[in-house]
C-alpha cells in the first residue's frame, strides 16, 4: 500500500527528512512534543491546596496509573509506575492520533510496535538480572529437575522471546486492523455512491478509541506482569 500523506508531508518535500522514512516517525515526534508541552505547562505552578483544573486532571491520571500498577506489582510500584505509566500514556496517544484527520497512527506501523516491544523486553530483562543476579537468572531458565535442563532451556528461551513478539504483534494488529476497517469503509461509501462524503466510518472511529485504550492498557499491564513475575522469582528464592 502506498504511504498516506499527512500534514507533516512538507518535511519530506523540503528535503529535511529522507524519502525512506515512514510518515509515522514525524508524527511520533509531534506526540512526544505534545506530551512534553503538556507536562512542562505545569512546571513551577504546582499548588498543594486549591489545585487548578489542569493540575487536578494530571493528578487524576497519575493516581489512577499508580493504583493500577500497585494492583499488579505491589510494593515495587514506586520504581515501576513511571515506566508502566509512560508506556500506557505514550501508546494511548500514539494510537489515538491516527483518528485525527490528516495524521497516521505510528502504532499502525510495525516498526513502532516492535521498537516498543524491544524496549519493554530490555526493561524486563534488566529488572530480572539486577534483582535476581546473573547466576540465578540463568538457573531460572534451566528449570527445576536439573537433568531436564537441555530440554527446558530452549523452551524457556523461546517462551521468553515470544513475549515481546506477541506484544508487538498484538498492538500492531489491533491498531492497524482498526485503521484498515475505517479506511475500507470510507472507500466503499465513496466508490459506491460516487464520492459522497457520508461519514459512515464514524461508529468504527468510536470503537477505535475504545480499542486504543484497551490495547494500551493491555500492553502496559503485560509489561508490569512480566516484571512482577521476574521479581517474584527473586522473593521466592529467599
Amino acid at each position, binding site marked *: 500500500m502506498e504511504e498516506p500523506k499527512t500534514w507533516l508531508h512538507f518535511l519530506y518535500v523540503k528535503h529535511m527528512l529522507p524519502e525512506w522514512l515512514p510518515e509515522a516517525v514525524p508524527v511520533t515526534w509531534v506526540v512526544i512534543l505534545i506530551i512534553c508541552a503538556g507536562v512542562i505547562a505545569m512546571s513551577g505552578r504546582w499548588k498543594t491546596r486549591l489545585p487548578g483544573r489542569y493540575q487536578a486532571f494530571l493528578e487524576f491520571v497519575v493516581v489512577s496509573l499508580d493504583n493500577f500498577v500497585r494492583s499488579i506489582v505491589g510494593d515495587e510500584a514506586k520504581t515501576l509506575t513511571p515506566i508502566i505509566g509512560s508506556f500506557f500514556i505514550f501508546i494511548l496517544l500514539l494510537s489515538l492520533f491516527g483518528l485525527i484527520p490528516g495524521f497516521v497512527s505510528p502504532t499502525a506501523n510495525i516498526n513502532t510496535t516492535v521498537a516498543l516491544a524491544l524496549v519493554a523486553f530490555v526493561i524486563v530483562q534488566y529488572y530480572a538480572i539486577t534483582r535476581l543476579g546473573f547466576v540465578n537468572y540463568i538457573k531460572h531458565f534451566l528449570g527445576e529437575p536439573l537433568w531436564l535442563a537441555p530440554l527446558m532451556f530452549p523452551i524457556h528461551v523461546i517462551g521468553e522471546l515470544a513475549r515481546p513478539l*506477541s506484544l508487538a*504483534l498484538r498492538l*500492531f494488529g*489491533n491498531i*492497524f*486492523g482498526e485503521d484498515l476497517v475505517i479506511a475500507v469503509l470510507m472507500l466503499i461509501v465513496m466508490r459506491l455512491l460516487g464520492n459522497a462524503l457520508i461519514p459512515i466510518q464514524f461508529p468504527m472511529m468510536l470503537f477505535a478509541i475504545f480499542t486504543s485504550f484497551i*490495547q494500551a*492498557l493491555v500492553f502496559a*499491564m503485560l509489561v508490569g506482569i512480566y516484571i512482577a513475575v521476574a521479581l517474584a522469582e527473586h522473593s521466592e528464592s529467599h
Partner: protein
Amino acid sequence: MGYLIALVIAIGFGVPIAVIGGGLGQGKAVASALEAMARQPEAAPKLQLAMIIGLAFIESLVIYALVIALIMLFTGVPSAGVLLKTLVK
C-alpha cells in the same frame, strides 16, 4: 492468476477459522464473567476489568492470524518456484 485465486481462498478460509476459535473462547470468558458478576454484584468493577483484559488476550490470538493474512496480501508470499530459485542462487 492461479496464485491470486489460491491466495484468496487460503485467506478467505484461514482467517474465519481463526475467528471461530476466538469467538468461542471469548464467549466462554464473558459467560463465566457474567455469571460471577450475577453471583456477586459488588465485585463487578474488578470482574469487568479482568474480563476486558482476558478478552484482549484471546483477541490477540485472532489478530496473529489476521497479521499473517495481511502479510500475505500486501507484501506477498513468493511462490515455491521463485523461492527455490532465490535460495539456489
